[in-house]
């Protein structure tokens, strides 16, 4: 019986990813996808978990992270431990979006939706993070996707502070995206996702959002959110914006 290999050589890793060895060497040198392990003889080796993360994409990696009992390590550059780091990375997103000519008119709406989702995570979980504090925030301009996630208390627990009758994650998601909430005056917390819904519609983008065992889809074809029970069990929230 042969044990499943934990580490692949650079040739095996290149075949696994469908890339050339030259490309993997270049990614290792630039730091964009470094080898998992370098032998004393300078041979590059790649772990199966790093290769799987590379192939399954940002959204799936983030869903796995937000759904896991124990948070797995994800790349540091995906992670914003504080709102200041999130703010700096959001500014980077805005300038990157503005480099794409097709997005000139829509960049402000896309970025403000991402900002509202990320800032909500910090505002609603301050002093209350169950395990990992902060927000995952990563985007890929080539794939036209922005992913945000937190391992906070989630929408249901947040809204129950002002709407204690809410019973399920689906109900909470519907209220968060469709009803104006009157909370503690003079603050109006809890209304950010209504804005996100309109920003997604006006920018002709799409949003998938998960919290607890509920999932929501807003797409270009319909401004009405589709809310269903999802196959995931998310601690906190995950949002995927495709533009």
């Amino acid at each position, binding site marked *: 019986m042969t044990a499943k290999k934990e580490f692949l050589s650079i040739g095996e890793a290149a075949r696994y990813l469908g890339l050339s060895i030259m490309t993997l060497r270049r990614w290792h040198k630039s730091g964009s996808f470094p080898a998992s392990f370098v032998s004393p003889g300078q041979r590059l080796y790649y772990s199966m978990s790093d290769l799987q993360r590379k192939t399954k994409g940002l959204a799936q990696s983030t869903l796995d992270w937000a759904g896991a009992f124990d948070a797995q390590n994800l790349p540091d550059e995906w992670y914003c431990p504080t709102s200041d780091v999130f703010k700096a990375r959001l500014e980077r997103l805005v300038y990157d979006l503005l480099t794409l000519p097709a997005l000139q008119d829509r960049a402000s709406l896309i970025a*403000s939706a991402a900002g509202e989702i990320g800032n909500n995570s910090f505002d609603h979980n301050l002093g209350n993070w169950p395990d990992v504090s902060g927000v995952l925030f990563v985007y890929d301009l080539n794939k036209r996707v922005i992913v945000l996630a937190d391992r906070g208390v989630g929408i249901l627990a947040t809204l129950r502070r002002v709407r204690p009758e809410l019973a399920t994650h689906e109900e909470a998601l519907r209220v968060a995206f469709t009803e104006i909430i009157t909370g503690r005056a003079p603050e109006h*917390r809890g*209304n950010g996702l209504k804005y996100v819904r309109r920003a997604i519609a006006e920018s002709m983008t799409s949003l998938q959002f998960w919290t607890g065992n509920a999932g929501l889809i807003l797409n270009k074809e319909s401004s009405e959110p589709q809310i269903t029970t999802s196959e995931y069990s998310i601690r906190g929230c995950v949002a995927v914006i495709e533009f």
Partner: protein
Amino acid sequence: MKVLVQKFGDILTSRQSGREAYAAFRPTLNGLSKYDELVLDFEGLEVLSPSWADEFLTPLLQDLGERLVLVHTKNASVKLTIETLEGILKRPFIIQ
């Protein structure tokens, strides 16, 4: 009195920075007579969101009412943020 909102930053999205901006700006209002308008100019702003605006614009609207005037609001996120706040506050802003 006219104030360029962009002086608080190009990208204004969080409640925390909205609160800080309002706290820093509030003493300036002491120089405004009870007949003067405060004109907030959104020219050059890249991104605005309701969280920042709720901390900055909402108290100004409550203090000044019709003496608060908003100009150059055509940026898509500025326009939608103002409409969203109007929906929550159930009160219109004066936009020129």
